């Protein structure tokens, strides 16, 4: 099994909103889907998930509705709101920009001559 990673701070909201874009889900399903869709690489601790859900609810990006679960249990479902959808669009853009930037830096650093980077501290040391 691949090593599990905690979902990056700040990206959890994005993932939740993305999952809710297609259908209403309850908390457990959200945690399951995150781990499933990320091929079990990403793991959401409940300690983070529920506070995040309740925060989103508070910001009115999602609303909560009570429904019946697969096993016929009363369950709290989360549903994305209009402002949640807008937030999803802008957050997705922001994330992609960020990811591209990180990728660029990584690629640039790998191609640059080794000295270019290691020189800087040395010069500082002389003066």
């Amino acid at each position: 099994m691949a090593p599990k990673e905690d979902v990056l701070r700040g990206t959890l909201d994005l993932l939740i909103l993305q999952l809710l874009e297609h259908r209403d889900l309850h908390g457990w399903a959200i945690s399951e889907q995150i781990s499933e869709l990320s091929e079990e690489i990403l793991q959401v601790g409940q300690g983070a998930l529920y506070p995040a859900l309740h925060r989103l609810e508070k910001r009115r990006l999602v609303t909560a509705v009570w429904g019946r679960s697969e096993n016929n249990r009363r369950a709290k479902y989360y549903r994305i709101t209009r402002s949640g959808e807008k937030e999803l669009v802008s957050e997705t853009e922001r994330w992609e920009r960020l990811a591209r930037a990180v990728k660029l830096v990584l690629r640039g650093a790998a191609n640059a001559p080794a000295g270019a980077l290691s020189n800087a501290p040395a010069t500082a040391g002389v003066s």
Partner: protein
Amino acid sequence: MANDPQKPKRSLADISPLRRLRTKEREIDDEMLFHLEMEERKLREQGLSEADARRQARLRFGGQGKWRDEVRDVDGIGPFERLMADLRFGLRVLKRSPVFTVVSILTLALGIGASTAIFSVVDGILLRALPYAEAGELVTVWADYTKRNGPEREWWGYPNFHDVRKETALSALEPGAVADAVTDPVTDGRVFEDMALWTGWGPTLTGNSGGAEQLQGARVSQGMLSNVLRVAPIKGSLFRPEDDVPGASQVALISERLWQRSFGGDPNILGRSLTLSGETFTVLGVLPGEFRQPFIPQAEIWTVPRIDITDYPGGRGSAMMRVVGRLAPEASLDQARARLQQVAAALEQAYPEDLTNVGATAFPLKDDIVAGSRSGLLLLLAAVVATLLIVCINLANLLLARGNARLREFSLRAALGASSGRLARQLLTESLLLAGLGGALGVALAIAGTRLLVSLAPAGTPRIEEVGVDNRVLLFCTAVSLLCGLLFGLLPALQAARSRIASRIGRNREGGERASEFLVAGQVAAALVLLIGAGLLLQSFTKLARTDLGYRAEGLISVSVTAPSARFPEMEQASEYLDNVEAELSSIAGVEKIARGDTLPLSGANGDLTYNIEGRDVPDPGEEDIAWFRRATPGYFATLGIELVSGRAIATTDSADAVPVVLINETLAQRQFGNQDPVGQRLNINDPSEPKWREIIGVVGDIKNFDLREQARPAMYLPFAQVQTRRAFLALRTGGDEDQLLRSVQQRLRAFDPDAVPVIQAANSLVEGARSLDRFVAWLLSLFAGVALTLAAVGLYGVISYRVSQRTVEIGLRLALGAPASTIGRWVISRSLRISLVGVVLGLGLGALAARSLRSQLFEIEPTDPLTFAGLAVVMIIVACLASGVPAWRAARLDPATVLKAE
């Protein structure tokens, strides 16, 4: 716009924040539970066993209470809302077990109510400041006779008071001199703002529409009300300096109570003339009804003594009046004492024949007022606190047992993420809730209890009229309730905090049981301490009740009569009047003997006098022996039942112009004459420079004269005819009904002299009065001890029953394996005995410590009386056995088959 349509209207649910909170909390719980269930289901589908799935799910859930609190914060459930939720949950829990709740609240209410009631009395009498402005500055000032082996607190003669005041009081300076002469009052020796003297005054009011009335009042020197006690009149003015000089016309102040009662609130009361004991007084002002003269709280009328210092009877050493002073704000009590000693030393130099070895000292006024009640009240407070402690222990035990029963609930909540701190907080909230409810009911009990205590308090208890439930008392009650809640709630809360993991139940139960047993042992110890205290006091009281008075109080009636000088200016007329009264009363049916003295035993102080014996060296001034004395008519000893040890009693032949004679008591005889026969010897009273020898004609037995606990002091009896006075106590002996006689004396005297205001009382009531504080304390303490014993027994019963119920399987097994039922019973009782023995040993030790502080309360019994200690320890052990008897019997009768099948 006044109304914003965008703003959502508050829904009905919002009206009750509590309900909304409840919903929110439940939603959070439901959401978590649902998550757990789903996780469990998934794991089971992956092939895990049910138990493993459950454990794994909870493990993955992780974070314990942290995220839960986070979710709460997000949802806006703050600490206050959480507290409300805890309270609400607590109420629900309490409602679920009504018997437990009601019993706990009632026990608590009793404990808190009783301690609050006692506290209100202690507070009103001992703790609260006296009801005067800057009351901390008030002191009593005394002549100090300790260097003469006399009392440290002796009354004053007027000339001495006059001189001491002149030297030490700011107010004694000439008007106008104050500002110039005084730079620093203390270094100038002006340690007092002012001091004033007082004596009791009991004038008869006549000529008023309501008939003759005996009043209680005080003669106070001019500065008493204005400078010392600082009372403001509600009408008119206080005494002015010119009122308190010889020859000034007589003036009086009356209290608002007297004004309303006897003068119907007459608006023209100022300037009105009153006839008091035949003399005319002018009303100068009215004092507020709540004002109390120190030491005479019943006083309703005041006048000034108008003493002429140049013509003062009795000399400097005479003890006629008492003094109250107000310290200068800058002066401390020690400074005042030092200054008084200085002034007394100077006076001693100036008047060596009167004042050798006489000092002066001062004490806080409050201490002197409450002195007689202090130890008794503190004792009751200690007892009630001990009882409250036992109540708390009982509740702690109940809660511990319940805590064990609620382990399932706790572990479920722990699994749902409740942190151990949260569980403890929840339990503590429940305890505080119980304590709060108990305290609320306790307040009601305290109010009733305080009223009861005030009505039962012995007559003459100082400041009892100031006792009541006020804010201070309520504050105390609240504090006690909170403290109780913490006390009995803390241990179960800690226990629960440690028990959150279900797998530790087994080990935890052991810990809980140990804690329970320790608590019960403490309870037994506390109860035993109370029992020992009550036992000692009760025995002491019984001894006090049986103590030999030296005279017979049963069937003795005393009638105090005064022949006022206004009606009988000559002493012969006064004596004739008293003779006539005596003759009149002797003719009443049922009176077997009659005689008169100037006071009755236990009815108040007589003066002391000094004496010397003929044929011996004249003692140096200040070295003379002191004796109390009483005037008596022929038949006095026979009437009172005082034993004549040798010689003869006073006879009618001992008249004014006959040979002066005296009788002495056994203590004086022993002290001065040892085994010699004193009869026929002569002694001289007061002035050795001009002896007037009195022949000792007899010796009589010692009596309890001032107090039932007193050590006998030297005393002498002088014939009434030879030392005449205007005031007499007639002593009537009857073999019949005392109450009947009291009534006929009243009627006969009223017919004989309508202006006479006699005080008629049964001597027995004086004896009862002298015993009443001891009885009050002894019985209340016994009550607490009884309650403590019952609570300890209940506690023991509870813990043993619980242990048995926890051990049914073990017991069942033993029985099944052939252990005889008696062994099982013995096993249970031995457990109980072990606990109570620890408690008894602890209690005996603590009891010995506590009893030491009782020494001053005890009469003819040692605080370490071994019989009391041993006897009560046995009682405690027997009660412990009885308390464990029922659970033992139940354990022995267990049916092994049923028990084992049930498992």
